[in-house]
């Protein structure tokens, strides 16, 4: 498994679930792992019974930590802890006018985020004494997440010089190295999520220079087997819904919804270009559909990835 894995996907498909499961799976294999989030709030810690984490890495389990990115904290850490340039930080970066610019400048935050992610697995040990073998990146939703991967090559075109240029080169180099960085794409068998995955797959290939490791279908309805489009053609459903007039319309609606999910998932997984893994919908296979249980289900389903080169 490469040192940095970017978990991409449409909003709401379960990127955090997959990121937590990848992290927990690697940690269970004795690796030191950090799950780096960039979110309104850290969603993952409560699943492990912990308080929400801020920028500082917080432990979820032995060998497993998480953090939530903040650009203010990352910039300070970068200049003060990593570069040891406290005076420069306060004179220039913390300058009121420069601060206004860095807050507004598009692309800068993305670059600082990427720099931080690679710093975690390369230089953090030297700077802070804390070693991480892997960083699993819970990226912002697809449009922003895919754009993130293109930022270092983009900054190369800006004619940067000085120290910042060296940093961009370093990050672009790490992102371009298949042993160092990889992506997985998460989707659900819903129309808009599958559309988005198909649309963004080639873009991710282009930005990263290679295909993602896998497309992961979360909330898979495969446990239902094949479902005929017409509920009346489905013997077990008829038996279940019969003699329940009050609920019949609602049950038909749920059936129709699930039948479409099954059909879409089938069409998607038979697309040979995308290597797919499926995580069962916890609502179908488990009476306990708590986030903890969902992460455990995902961890099982992702087993083929542990042996990824």
């Amino acid at each position, binding site marked *: 498994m490469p040192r940095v894995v970017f978990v991409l996907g*449409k*909003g*709401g498909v379960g990127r955090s679930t997959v990121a937590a499961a990848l992290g927990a799976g690697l940690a269970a294999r004795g690796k030191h792992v950090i799950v780096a989030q960039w979110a309104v709030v850290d*969603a993952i810690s409560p699943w492990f019974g912990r308080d929400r984490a801020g920028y500082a890495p917080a432990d979820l389990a032995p060998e497993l930590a998480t953090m939530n990115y903040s650009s203010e904290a990352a910039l300070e850490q970068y200049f003060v802890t990593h570069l040891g340039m406290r005076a420069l930080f306060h004179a220039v970066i913390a300058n009121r*006018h420069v601060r206004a610019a860095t807050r507004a400048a598009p692309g800068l935050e993305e670059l600082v985020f990427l720099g931080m992610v690679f710093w975690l697995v390369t230089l953090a040990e030297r700077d802070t004494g804390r070693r991480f073998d892997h960083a699993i990146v819970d990226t912002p939703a697809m449009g922003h997440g895919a754009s993130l991967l293109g930022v270092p090559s983009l900054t190369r075109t800006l004619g940067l010089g000085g120290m910042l240029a060296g940093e961009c080169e370093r990050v672009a180099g790490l992102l371009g190295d298949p042993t160092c960085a990889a992506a997985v794409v998460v989707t659900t068998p819903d129309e808009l999520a599958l559309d988005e995955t198909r649309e963004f797959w080639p873009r991710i290939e282009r930005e990263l220079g290679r295909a993602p490791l896998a497309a992961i279908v979360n909330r898979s309805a495969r446990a239902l087997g094949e479902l005929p489009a017409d509920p009346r053609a489905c013997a077990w*459903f008829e038996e279940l819904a019969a003699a329940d007039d009050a609920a019949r319309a*609602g049950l038909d609606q749920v059936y129709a919804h*699930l039948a479409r999910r099954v059909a879409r998932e089938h069409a998607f997984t038979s697309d040979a270009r995308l290597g797919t893994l499926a995580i069962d919908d916890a609502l179908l296979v488990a009476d306990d*559909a708590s986030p903890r249980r969902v992460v455990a289900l995902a961890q099982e389903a992702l087993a083929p990835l542990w042996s990824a080169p």
Partner: protein
Amino acid sequence: MTARLAIVLGPGGVGKTTLASALGLAHARAGEHAALLGVDPAHRLRSALALPELSEHGVRVPIDAPGSLDAALLDPSACLRRWVADACPDPEQRARIAANPFFVALADRLASFTDAIGCARAVEWVERDPALTELVLDTAPGTPALELLARPDKLAAFFDGRLIRWLARFAGGIYTGRTVSRLADLSGTGALREFGALVSTLEGAIAKLVERLELARRWLRDPETSIVLASGVGEDAAAATRELARGARALGFSPRLIVLNRVLPDVLASSPDRATRSPQAAAFARYVRGYLRAQQRARAELAAELTPVIEIADTAMLDAPDRLAALTELGEPLRARLAAQRRVDRPRRLRSRV
């Protein structure tokens, strides 16, 4: 602003695009001259409206209604090029701008720029179409959507700030102050000069942008403007919605309405509970039970918010044979409730002002 603004925010996967489309269609059915602008770089609006094509300029959605609905996707590249063309009549100067690496980076590659100019694009729409009465913004999931609310302030501060004047003068070889020279040590003088050159050639376009950002700032804070928070039954969706509500409030915006989307009828709770031998039937029954439990949890979580909550059932809607009609029907209660809530909020706001 002459048009009324509604911004749909929410965590991913709860149906923001669907709800925004539904609201836009309901406006058209009610006789409004409405527009729907997708500010999500992921571009799902086209699929949601089942349109063959969706452009930056706007496409009239083919519906039979007393009003109308135009839908457009924010395309930062086309948008910036148009703004530059509006402000710089000189083709040579335009060509120089188009070749500037910072301009290319902004226009073509950066998703975060979509949120940055979303509000300014909305203002431009009203300028160009003064007959517009309702504008609905569909946003990207999560944090970037909050950026959409905060960016007009941030960008206006940037373009009005001293640094940008320093950079322009630096590019012209006039300025050699300490802060900019130290910045040049960090990033190289080449890049700073390119950026400064871009800023000074774009003076006209930037002035227009600052003007639109100022209008957007005021529009966002207009008492008629509504922030609609979409939420779902899914794991953590309600909690994420509350976080967005908190984030919006921290920026000084009070959400008008929370929509709990994709609610199943409660009558199903007692229904598929009989013993069955088929594993598929057992899985199905488990699904319904689990979904309704999650629905209860989402309700309880959202009930703790001050903002009123409405529930919407749409499970099968999207695949209905006439999607636009189904969406319009979905949007009607939303539109009605939003209007009612606006009336409720109005006197309260006036009182608090006194």
